Structures are given as C-alpha cells and as structure tokens.
C-alpha cells in the first residue's frame, strides 16, 4: 500500500491532543508530560489496509481448519509403526511427526489469527484506569474490629475457660489418628539394611550366563558381574535383593593389591566388591582396568579397587564393601559369608 492511498484528510491530525493528567511543565524539565496522544495505525484510517488484515486473520483461521483436517487424516492414514526419514530429524515415526505438526499448526494459527486481529483491528488506544488503595479505610478497619470483638464476646469464648481448653485439646489430638494411620506405610527398618542375601558357601553366579563362576574364568583385566546362587531373575523379590547383593568381580595381580585385608579376602587376586555405591546407591561399575579405579556414573565417586576400595575422589563417604570369597571343593567361587558391613548408602544407624 503506497502512501498516496492514505488521504491526508483521513488523518485525524486535528484531533485534540488528549493529555491525560498532564501537568504543564513549569520549570521542572522532568515533569510528567502526560499520556501522549493516540497515533492511528494504517488500519484505523485506511479501510483497504484494514480489509487486508481481516483477510490475513481469516486466512490463519482457515489454515487452522485445514490443519485439523490434516490431523485427522494423518491419524487415519499413517500406520503407527511407519518410520520415515525426514531431514534433519532422522528416522522418525511418520504418525508422530504428522500429528504433531498438524496439531501445532492448527493451534498456532488460531493464536496467530486472534493476536493479529487484536493488534491490527481492535482499538489500540491506551487508556488509563485508576488504582485504589488495597488497604481498607480506617472506618472499615474499625468496623471490622468492632464486629470481631462483638462476635467473640457473644460466643463467651473468653469467659468459658473450660470450653476453650477442652476444645483446643480435642482439636490438637484428633489429627493424631491420621498420623497413626500412616504407620503401615512400611515396615520398621530394624536391621534390614545391614544384611544382604549373601551367605557362607553361596556360589557366585555370572549374571551373563547364569552359571557359577570358576577362578580360571576370570582373567586379569576382565570385569564380571555376579549375583548370589539361587536368585532367579523372575523371583518376586529379585529387584529388592539385587539392589543390595549385586557384585562386581575383577582380577588383579596379587602383587598389585596394596591393602592387606583385601588380599586376604581375595582368591588368587580375584576380588569381589559390592556393585552398589556407598554414596547414594547407584550401581557403580565404570572399571578402568589399567588404573584399577572404578567410577560411579551418577556422581563420579571414584574408588581404588587395588587399595581396599578406598575413595579417591567424589562425594562417597567410605570405601566399597568387599565380599570374602574362596573356592569350594568343586572348584567354584563361593562367598565366605555376608558382607562385613552394610552395603550401599550410609544411614544413621550404620555406625
């Protein structure tokens, strides 16, 4: 639209400049000049521009309708398992992509239409509105307090001390029932966190093969995960048991083991450590076979498996518990008992 289309007489230049609350600046150069006069938009003075805005809004609403039809069509047409390659998004589900974009367009177009309508056709004249103090007037305040005092007096709450005391007692006791009802949310901790499923003579079962491990299976530099004998993956309590019993087995050259107790509890350099981090219980197992360090992927606690599982970095507070192992008569690795200390994160009663 060129400027010639806007005839000068349409411009309401003669309109009075409404200075809302204006103070004529006398001396003060920073005084509030008041609201500036409203400037018309093209749409306000030129019907052709306004009509173009109207068409744009209508187009957007129509686009939304088309997109909704597209949404329904996509829902019917695309099988749910159809994968298509769309640059740059990759191999994506055709259905998800089509539904999402059509829905997005259908919604966005409604919004864009409404906002364009508001911005170009609805009046954009800024008007002031008075504020009123939030707090009440002193009279109202007095009235409220008087009413309150009157009410309290009529209830005789202040005079009848016995009623007051017993009511307070009853009201403060009654929630206790609710608290008591929460007791059966779970069992008491007792010694549950102190023990795991490991017992003397239990064989170490390779989690990959479900077979008991022999010392000769485990080479230096290898990493193996084990669970206690008799624990089946489909057992009812498998998750809860493995959450404490998971083991990590590595073999070091016995001369590399710096900690004497670790050496005693190992078998020919094979050491079995708890896989559960002593920090907050992530399954720690990022084993670096050259440094013998094991790192936790959650919070980067680092333990030295050649030095009694000592913490060498990160937020863990104490060494990884080691399981005493040996070899039974059939030549299988077996536990010599449970862990000597609780596995996993520390707790108050741990000691």
């Amino acid at each position, binding site marked *: 639209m060129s400027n010639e289309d806007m005839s000068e007489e349409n411009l309401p230049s003669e309109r009075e400049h409404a200075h809302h609350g204006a103070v004529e600046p006398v001396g003060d150069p920073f005084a509030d000049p008041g609201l500036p006069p409203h*400037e018309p*938009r093209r749409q306000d003075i030129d019907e052709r521009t306004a009509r173009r805005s109207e068409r744009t809004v209508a187009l957007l609403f129509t686009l939304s309708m088309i997109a909704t039809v597209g949404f329904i069509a996509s829902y019917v047409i695309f099988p749910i398992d159809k994968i298509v390659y769309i640059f740059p998004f990759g191999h994506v589900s055709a259905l998800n992509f089509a539904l999402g974009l059509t829905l997005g367009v259908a919604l966005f177009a409604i919004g864009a239409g409404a*906002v364009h309508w508001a911005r170009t056709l609805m009046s954009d004249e800024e008007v002031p509105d008075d504020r009123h103090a939030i707090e009440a007037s002193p009279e109202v305040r007095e009235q409220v307090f008087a009413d309150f005092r009157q009410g309290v007096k009529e209830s005789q709450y202040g005079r009848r001390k016995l009623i007051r005391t017993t009511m307070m007692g009853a009201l403060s006791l009654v929630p206790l029932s609710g608290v008591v009802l929460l007791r059966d949310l779970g069992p008491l901790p007792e010694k549950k966190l102190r023990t795991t499923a490991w017992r003397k003579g239990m064989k170490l079962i390779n989690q990959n093969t479900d077979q008991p491990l022999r010392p000769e299976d485990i080479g230096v*530099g290898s990493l193996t995960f084990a669970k206690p004998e008799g624990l089946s993956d489909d057992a009812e309590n498998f998750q809860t048991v493995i959450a404490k019993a998971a083991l990590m087995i590595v073999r070091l050259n016995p001369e590399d083991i710096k900690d004497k107790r670790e050496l005693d509890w190992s078998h020919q350099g094979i050491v079995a450590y708890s896989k559960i981090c002593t920090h907050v219980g992530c399954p*720690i197992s*990022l084993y670096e076979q050259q*440094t013998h*360090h094991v790192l936790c992927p959650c919070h980067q606690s680092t333990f030295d498996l050649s030095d009694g599982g000592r913490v060498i*970095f990160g937020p863990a507070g104490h060494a990884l518990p080691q399981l005493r192992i040996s070899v039974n008569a059939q030549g299988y690795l077996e536990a010599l008992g449970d862990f000597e200390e609780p596995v996993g994160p520390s707790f108050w009663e741990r000691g």
Partner: protein
Amino acid sequence: MKKLSARRRHPLAALVVLLFALAATGGLYAAFAPAEKAQADSAQSLATEEGKKLYSVGCASCHGTSGQGTHNGPSLVGVGAAAVDFQVGTGRMPAQQPGAQVPRKKAIYDQAQIDQLAAYIASLGPGPAIPTKQQYSPDGADIANGGQLFRTNCAQCHNSTGKGGALSEGKFAPTLDGVDPKHLYEAMLTGPQNMPNFPDSTMPQKEKKDIIGYLAQVDSSKSSSPGGLELGGLGPVSEGLFAWIFGLGAMITVAIWVAAHTAKARKS
C-alpha cells in the same frame, strides 16, 4: 588510561574486546584440556612380507624391539592378533601423542598390513585371535538379550544406546556409533586401554554377537527415533537445553510479537 577511555568508543573497540575475550577463553581452555601436540608419523613401509618389518618401523620405538614393552608402551607378548587388529584397525595405534587416552582416528595401515602386524604379534605369545565374520556379524543375534547384556555390562560407561560417556581424569568411553562390528567384538575380547575385557569364559561368543546385534539396531545411522530428533541420545541435559533455547526461546519471540505496538500510520 585516558587514551584507553578515549578509544573505547572506537567502532573496532567491541571487536578488540571480543578478541581478548576469545583469547582468554582459549587460554583457559588450553590450561584445562589434556595436552595436545605432536605429529602423526606415517610409517609407510612398502615391505609387504612380514609384519616384523612394519613393527620395527612403526611400533618398536614404544613397545620395544621384540614387543617386550618399554616405559612408553606396554608389552605386546600375549595380547593376541585381535588386540592388534582393533588398535591398528581403529587407528588408535600408532599413537599420536601421550595423553589421558589414545583416541580413534583414521587408520594408517591397510587391512593387509594390519594382518601382517597381527600375525607377527600373535607369534610372540598366545592370545585372542581375530574373530571370524560369523562370530561378530549381527545377523541372527538375539537383540533383546543383547540389550539386557549391554545394560548390565556396557551401558555404565558407554550410555544405554552407546553414545559414550566420561571417565576419570579426562578419560572417556567413546561413542560406539559407526564402529565396525569386528572392532566391537575385539574390544570386548581384548579390553583396549582402560576398558576391561569380557573373555568368552564369562561372556560367551553368542552373547557378544547379541550385544553387537543390539547396537546395530539402536546405534547406527539407520536406527529409528520415533519421537523425532534424538538430541544426541544424551538424556535430560540436551532435552533441557532444547526446552530453554527452542521452547522458551520461541515463547519469548512470540510474546514480543504479541506485546509489540503495531506500526503507526506516520512516524512521530
């Protein structure tokens, strides 16, 4: 000082500040990043006969004249042909420089030369042999079982779909995207660098194949991501960045448009 303040309005002042900032950032980065220099020494021996010749040119300076190892490199006696095929085949060996970890790069030797080197190293002492195609091919693998094994044995370092992850002191578990199935198999078998090994005695051949099958399914250029952009497969961090940059960024852009004043008929 006065000169400086006089010049700060210079049109190029912003550029100078930017250059300083970039230099400072780069300096800081260099201070933290594991050292990086040196040059690839390309041993281009044309001797096709034995790996020993290749070895004495390309490897002996670090691993010793007969593979016994030096303080610059470990002994290669007994590492087996599979280790050589992995290390040289993925370009990790010969190493460019000492550092936290030797990264994967373009292989320097061709497969024939690698085979010669492997044959030579294998002759030094018994070790794992190069797997056959039948062993490592993802065809016929039990993908779901592979996934379960991957989550138990591998995901803690390599991420649940093999995108890699950080280890201590600048070391890292590399991404497994685009790694040859043969090299995947060899890595599990030999445990390169700080990676532990998973010998057949604790992880039978079939299970290695299953793991390779799982990776071929979820971590290849053909893997599908039904929901759209995978965002690196890195989880909530990249999702959060996306939500802030594209999600909230779009919201604010839209809000600016909604709240902006419409153009007036004439400039005031």
